[in-house]
């Protein structure tokens, strides 16, 4: 604990900034915006420091020694209570190879989102709304960051829920025409998921005992839950207890997380939310929020319910397959640019699920990498939609055509993003998808599913190129004669993402080194 608490800074700096902003008058637009920017830049620095200080040999997952930058204090500690006579919640932050990529991702996305929120008042024409917007954005930032670094299940849940509320308002206030519907749908949907999670959390809490100061007490510590030895013999989750609820608990958690991913058939909130949300919010939604689901499955379900996972791996992979193909077809069927992107997210998150269902180092590493890559690529895609929408206030694919000659640089960016999206070799997604496919193809059980999923690659090309052609090729309408190419601010958003996409396409090693040991350990832990 001697070292500097990077993670706390990462997590709570935005919240503090948000509290500070409350006292800034709404007129001081620039103060607010630059504060937000400052916060994300500090976050980037912190993340960089964590990255440099990261020890690639530690294994994480189920052993405290495996974690780094650990900050573990008692947060709430009550003794002398009935039944389980202590109630203890820890303030427990740490990173390992699984959470580190996600932390990096959410830092990047936070930065990009802040930049693209710069003129939120103009783009959503809500004058004077910057204050509330950025406060909510910062709170959201805290929530997302916290989910990835919290290792106390209870804390995790708090962050998990903390994400919902700002999101609700951000969609509901700054959103598009059907914002109310989208906002409440998103909220109710995800809430329904997370209350299930809550029940399971309590169930686990009641059936896990962790040695503490001589005696054994109930705990929310994930690491303790991963150790079978800690389960009480009569607890509802314990393996000894014949009539145990492990399967139900597994199911509850899985549904809870599947809604976030989102996994068929729980995905229908996504298109609405995406289409109605303002650009930066869609970016965060697709870039980070969806990853929370996949991350949670790996971080929580796998180590805590290995046997259920083993038992249901095929079905998980099946759902992943459905996501891939179904999402792709839906994307192909869309007329609305943004909806198309949203469904492409559904399809791509399917790859993640397929990957983590493979039970192989390659597959899972691919899944995590895919989460990262999809995060960056899809962020780019939504920003792209945002750019064209800000300029023309149109989103229908058929409203455009032949923009290529008018806005060459923009076209270039779009081409890059699109080809990255359907996994062109040399761009980031290809590596992860390749790993996923190899991993999946290696396991005999789900080979057939893999073959079917591979159709997703073809379809990916089909719908992406279709969009590309409809928007940028062919005859140009005269109304776009005056269309402006990218501005400096937009370059600031696109260039980092573009660099990441290309860099990790050619040389993904840094990312993989981070997760390598951890994932091997995950596999050994769950076998």
């Amino acid at each position, binding site marked *: 604990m001697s070292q500097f608490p990077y993670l706390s800074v990462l997590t709570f700096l935005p919240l503090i900034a948000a509290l500070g902003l409350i006292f800034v008058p709404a007129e001081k637009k620039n103060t607010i915006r630059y504060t937000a920017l400052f916060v994300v830049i500090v976050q980037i620095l912190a993340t960089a420091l964590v990255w440099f200080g990261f020890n690639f040999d530690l294994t994480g997952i189920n052993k405290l020694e495996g974690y780094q930058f650990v900050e573990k204090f008692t947060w709430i500690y009550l003794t002398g209570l009935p039944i389980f006579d202590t109630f203890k919640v820890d303030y427990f932050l740490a990173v390992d190879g699984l959470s580190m990529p996600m932390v990096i991702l959410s830092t990047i996305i936070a930065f990009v989102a802040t930049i693209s929120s710069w003129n939120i008042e103009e783009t959503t024409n809500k004058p004077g709304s910057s204050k509330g917007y950025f406060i909510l954005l910062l709170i959201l930032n805290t929530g997302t960051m916290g989910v990835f670094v919290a290792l106390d299940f209870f804390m995790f849940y708090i962050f998990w829920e903390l994400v919902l509320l700002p999101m609700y308002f951000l969609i509901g206030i700054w959103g598009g025409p059907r914002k109310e519907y989208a906002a409440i749908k998103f909220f109710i949907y995800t809430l329904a998921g997370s209350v299930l999670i809550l029940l399971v959390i309590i169930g686990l809490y009641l059936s896990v005992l962790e040695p503490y100061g001589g005696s054994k007490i109930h705990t929310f510590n994930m690491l303790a839950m991963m150790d079978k030895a800690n389960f009480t013999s009569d607890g509802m989750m314990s393996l000894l207890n014949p009539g145990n609820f492990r399967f139900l608990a597994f199911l509850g958690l899985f549904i809870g997380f599947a809604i976030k991913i989102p996994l068929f058939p729980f995905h*229908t909130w996504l298109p609405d939310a995406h289409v109605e949300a303002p650009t930066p919010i869609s970016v965060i939604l697709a870039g980070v929020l969806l990853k929370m689901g996949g991350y949670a499955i790996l971080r929580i379900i796998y180590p805590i319910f290995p046997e259920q996972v083993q038992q249901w791996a095929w079905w998980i992979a099946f759902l992943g397959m459905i996501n891939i193909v179904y999402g792709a077809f*839906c994307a192909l069927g869309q007329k609305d640019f943004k909806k198309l992107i949203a469904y492409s997210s559904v399809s791509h998150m399917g790859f993640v699920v397929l990957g983590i269902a493979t039970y192989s180092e390659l597959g899972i590493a691919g899944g995590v990498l895919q989460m990262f890559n999809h995060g960056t690529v899809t962020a780019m895609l939504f920003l792209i939609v945002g750019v064209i929408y800000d300029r023309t206030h149109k989103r229908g694919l058929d409203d455009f055509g032949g923009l290529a000659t008018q806005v060459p640089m923009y076209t270039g960016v779009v081409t890059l993003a699109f080809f990255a999206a359907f996994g062109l070799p040399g761009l980031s997604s290809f590596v992860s998808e390749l790993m996923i496919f190899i991993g999946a193809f290696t396991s005999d059980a789900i080979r057939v599913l893999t073959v079917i999923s591979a159709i997703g*690659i073809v379809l990916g090309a089909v719908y992406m190129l279709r969009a590309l052609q409809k928007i940028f090729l062919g005859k140009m309408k005269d109304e776009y004669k005056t269309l402006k190419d990218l501005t400096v601010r937009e370059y600031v958003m696109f260039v980092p993402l573009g660099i990441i996409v290309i860099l990790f396409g050619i040389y993904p090693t840094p990312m993989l080194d981070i997760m390598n040991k951890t994932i091997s350990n995950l596999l050994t832990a769950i076998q």
Partner: protein
Amino acid sequence: MNTHLTLLQALVILLPLFGFVVAILAPNKMKKMYLVETGIMFVSLVLAAILFFTKIFNFSEEIIRSQFTLFSLGMGEKPFELLVDLTMDNMTVSLLFMVTLISFLVHFFSLEYMAEDPLKNRYFGYLGLFTFSMLGLVSTGSILFIYIFWELVGLSSYLLIGFWGYKDEAADACSKAFITNRVGDFGFFLGVLTLFITYRSFDLFYIFGEIAKGSYPYGSEVWLTVAGLLLFCGAIGKSAQFPLHVWLPDAMAGPTPVSALIHAATMVAAGVYMIVRLFPMFTETAFIVIGVIGGFSALMAATVALTQLDIKKILAYSTVSQLGLMVLAVGVGAYQAAIIHLMFHAFFKAGLFLGSGSIIHATHSQDIMDMGGLRKKMPVAFYTTLMYALSLIGFPLTIGFLSKEMILTSSLVLGNMTGNYIYFVFVVLTSVLTSFYIFRYIFLIFFGEPRNKHAYEHANDLNIFIKLPLIVLAALCFFFFFTLNPITLHGSYVTELLFKFPDILLPKEITHGFLTASPGNIYSTEYMHSLHESELLATLTSALIILAGVGTAWYMYMKKKLVPKVPEGALGKLYLFSQNKWYLDELYGVTVIKGTHLTAALMSWIDKNIVDGVINLGAWVTVALGKFSAAFDLYVIDGLVNLVAWINGFFSMFIRKFQTGKVQSYLTLAMVFIVLFVMYVFSN
């Protein structure tokens, strides 16, 4: 020293990429950046030449490879390692040389051809990207990297076809090209996966070794066949074989030099190159499928080419047909014939395209009906084109003769040995048609009366940028660059040095032919022997073929001066059938494409109305329950008051039942209940 070569190779490959980056990132002010790119291309060409000769003369026997680990994953006894693989054997260097050469010539040609285009930087950048991908494709020994570069050439082809994206046909063509290829790559990808999970490696040479040792996917030769065919799917897509050939003709919407470079000389040949590379891993069944598909594509494309009016379309189908021949050659086990024909074809077909390009540039038309009699106006174009045409039909003393004759011979020999002459028939028919349509092409363009005076007036040979490439390529069409023996390539350095696999890579025994074919070892001395004695027959055949084809063409278009049009009667039907490309596009249009879009629409509908519907239904039910309980609360039991009112109504109704007894009767009833209850109480 080897490392130096490797570095040189890496340089040759990466320079064009550098050119691409330079040209793409060039700010709008630097209009002339494309010249830099061309310069870089030239350097790359020179280096490739140096590489070629060094390799051939000093290290002819070696396969120079260098690999390094990009990343490795996992702790298991066999962690996954992604190796970057740079391999160089004679075939590689020859192809490197060829590709850089043609690519440079095309650059050179484009300097004039694209002179007016505002986005030249971008255009040349794309050319650079393509060259890079193509070079990478031929110089790696890892199936994965072949796939990667495979996709990249696809990308650059997409970009170049769509370069004039404001033209609708170009817009459609580029998407069509990429997606059609993607369909093939679907198979390719699965093939790669199958190989990997079997041998835990992407290294082809290692895999060949394993196969030679007799270890097959899932331990059965069937799966080896499947893997082979899956990989072949990729080739079908790239090399525009039936049934995925439809994209190539449309791809002609791109600039003509691009067609010359990509859709005639190099990229489309990549498929053939791949199956030649993979030659050692094909099984008998695989060979049969390959051969038949190749033969059929060759024949079909040739028939289509007979009646086209767009000069680029004619050449496009001719390309498909020639590629078909190469694939067939692989199918009959004559990998050398295939790869050699690939290279020669690259020269003369690129030439043909550039020639057509110069014509188009001169007459501003692609329609064969606008031409005629250009012989006098464009002598250079004419003579060079004639040269190409001659080598295309395999006229003696041309390189075409040499390669064509190899294919004929080997297919004939195969027939002799297995009694299965189908391949031979394919080749012969195709060749006849070829020599017909290519001379139809020449006669209609360069001879006869000009059909479009205006175009005719403007036509001329233009400047050196146009002429030089044509002449160079034409020169390359003479045999003596490749062998001193005008009759056959046997014993020439081409066969003995450039394109000769070390014996370990050659299958010990490949049995051939349809169902009941007797096995024959095609690399046995016996085979070689019969090869020699078949050559004469083959030569004669090709002579006859040429006479037949060219003769007919001469008779129809020179003697009778016919103008292409739909003849009457059954012949007309055939004519239309051929002119409309066997109606394949229409067929796909109504089946595959419509099918996909219908499915998509269906899925979206399901998503909107059923999947989401369920959720909304859930919400609706909750709401309904709420409404119900609210209503219940409002009207039924709105506080004690309504309770009273309600019970009032209830009792009054009740009392109406007991008309006579009136209220008292009910009271007594109530009393009875209570008394009963109290008695029950006291019973215990």
